[in-house]
């Protein structure tokens, strides 16, 4: 009986994760290596991968800086009333609960071309929806909790005494942050970065709604895969998916390593 359950567990694992991965790999190589290269070197594929790359860079930078700052303010700020802290703390988790598509839709409804704010910004030459800024904002919405949730427990665990000790030794906040706080939260932040990058690479729903999925303009790797599948171009879809999968596996390995380091410190 026990063997049956163990076998079943492995079967589910294989069916859900290993088989699709193998299928992607074989599917992308259906027309040989040249077929894979053709699929990847299409101008729209290169552009889509570049868009994904740009979004990853922006989102990771912004999310890291503001995620760490929010974590510090939520944990350390004594001037915030505990109830307000609790409220902010729950709002941070909102993107986990809300579907990314709805997140994207909110941005369209807020600053889309049909809204007053959107029209105003467009008049000033700033395009948000159906352009890169909207895609970055949508992805930020989805990834926001990741960094905060990684850094907050570490900050809580180390407590504020080491920082206070630095203060008493004459160090001001910037020096204290880099010399005392940062070494303790470093691995948590790296873990958060890895999660953010992985999530950004794979983000589909929010980006699809905000970008409009315009080829060679606002198309990302994931939305290109979606379009290739729609057009029955399975080999190309598999090829782009393989690139994304390869990145994800690399990130996972990095994450495991970061996790181990995090536990050590």
């Amino acid at each position: 009986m026990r063997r049956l359950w163990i076998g079943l567990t492995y079967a589910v694992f294989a069916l859900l994760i290993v088989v699709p991965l193998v299928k992607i790999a074989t599917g992308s190589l259906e027309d040989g290596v040249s077929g894979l290269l053709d699929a990847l070197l299409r101008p729209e594929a290169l552009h889509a991968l570049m868009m994904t790359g740009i979004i990853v860079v922006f989102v990771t930078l912004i999310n890291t800086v503001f995620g760490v700052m929010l974590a510090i303010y939520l944990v350390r700020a004594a001037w915030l009333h505990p109830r307000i802290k609790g409220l902010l703390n729950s709002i941070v988790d909102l993107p986990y609960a809300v579907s990314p598509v709805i997140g994207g839709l909110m941005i369209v409804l807020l600053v889309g071309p049909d809204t007053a704010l959107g029209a105003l910004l467009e008049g000033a030459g700033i395009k948000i929806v159906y352009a890169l800024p909207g895609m970055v904002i949508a992805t930020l919405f989805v990834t926001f909790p990741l960094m905060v949730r990684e850094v907050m427990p570490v900050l809580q665990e180390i407590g504020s005494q080491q920082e206070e000790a630095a203060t008493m030794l004459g160090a001001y906040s910037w020096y204290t942050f880099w010399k005392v706080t940062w070494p303790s939260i470093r691995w948590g932040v790296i873990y958060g970065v890895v999660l953010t990058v992985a999530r950004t690479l794979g983000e589909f729903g929010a980006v699809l709604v905000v970008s409009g999925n315009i080829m060679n303009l606002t198309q990302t790797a994931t939305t290109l895969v979606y379009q290739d599948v729609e057009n029955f171009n399975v080999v190309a879809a598999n090829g782009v998916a393989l690139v994304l999968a390869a990145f994800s596996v690399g990130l996972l390995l990095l994450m495991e390593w970061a996790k181990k380091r995090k536990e050590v410190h």
Partner: protein
Amino acid sequence: MHIEVKGLSKSFGDFKAVQDVSFGIKKGHLIGLLGPSGGGKTSILRMLAGLEAPTAGDILFHGKRVNDLPPQERGIGFVFQNYALFKHMTVFENVAFGLKVKKLPKDAIRERVQSLIELTGLKGFEHRYPAQLSGGQRQRVAFARALAPEPQLLLLDEPFAAIDAKIRSELRTWLKEMIERVGITSIFVTHDQDEAIEVADEIMIISKGRLEQKGTPWEIYKNPETQFVAEFIGESTTVDNVAALHGFEEAAAWTGTRGLIRPEYIEIGKPGEITLASATMRGVVRHIHFRGSEWMVELEIGDIRLITYRSLEKDVLKPGDPVDILIHRAYLFNESDSWIMENKLKVDPMPVII
């Protein structure tokens, strides 16, 4: 550093952690802030350090108000309860931190750190991390780190709380010597009266956010000013009906007066053993407990129960033995007042001159 505190108060919401505390501390003195946990001692320390802003009151260093001075500029060394060592830095780096902040030249830093490491007996441990040290060693590192930037005031929050009992007394002596040698004004917080009495030049008793009494350990023991202090320092038994005790009949003149009697105020002997027979009263031994170096004796006089100690050199008493009890003095208090009353019968009313 000469310190003066006037009307210091701190509230957290509705909770009054510190209420109207005023005191002065002379340069070079070692002060113990003593009181029960949650009494506001740490809050006072943190306000002196600048880590907490007072709700009201002034803090003066050398006669200058420092309320608005940030903690970085106050020139105070702080030893935290759990030492708060920088765990990713070695002992050397920990001690050097305050000097690096001051941007001292490298040679000067090395020299100062080396001398402090030698002073605190940490030689050979410079390159260890805090996790590789014992509790006592961490305490020494925290002390060296706090002293490195040559502060004018040293604050220690429960410096011995995290150390096991055996090393604690050793470390107490060490700390007292060290502070005397450096000659720095120091304030430490503790809830352990033995610690405060042993280490401090002067004790401040803090309870419920108020300063109950300030004085040398001997003064506080001898002349407690409030009932709280009398009960908190030393051992004692509170007697409701103190006028029933022989020699303290006068206490009945103040209604509602109760008495506090310390074990060392009581002398006991087998019937006839005490010469001042007129001042004694007859009681019964209820229990005896061996306390290592003496017997603790529980006594019963009518419905009053007292405790005292008896030397191991004297005859061993048994529960139920009748004994003569001489109470030398009692600390009396009522709603409005407190005072010490000596046994009135100890002065023989009819001296026989031989």
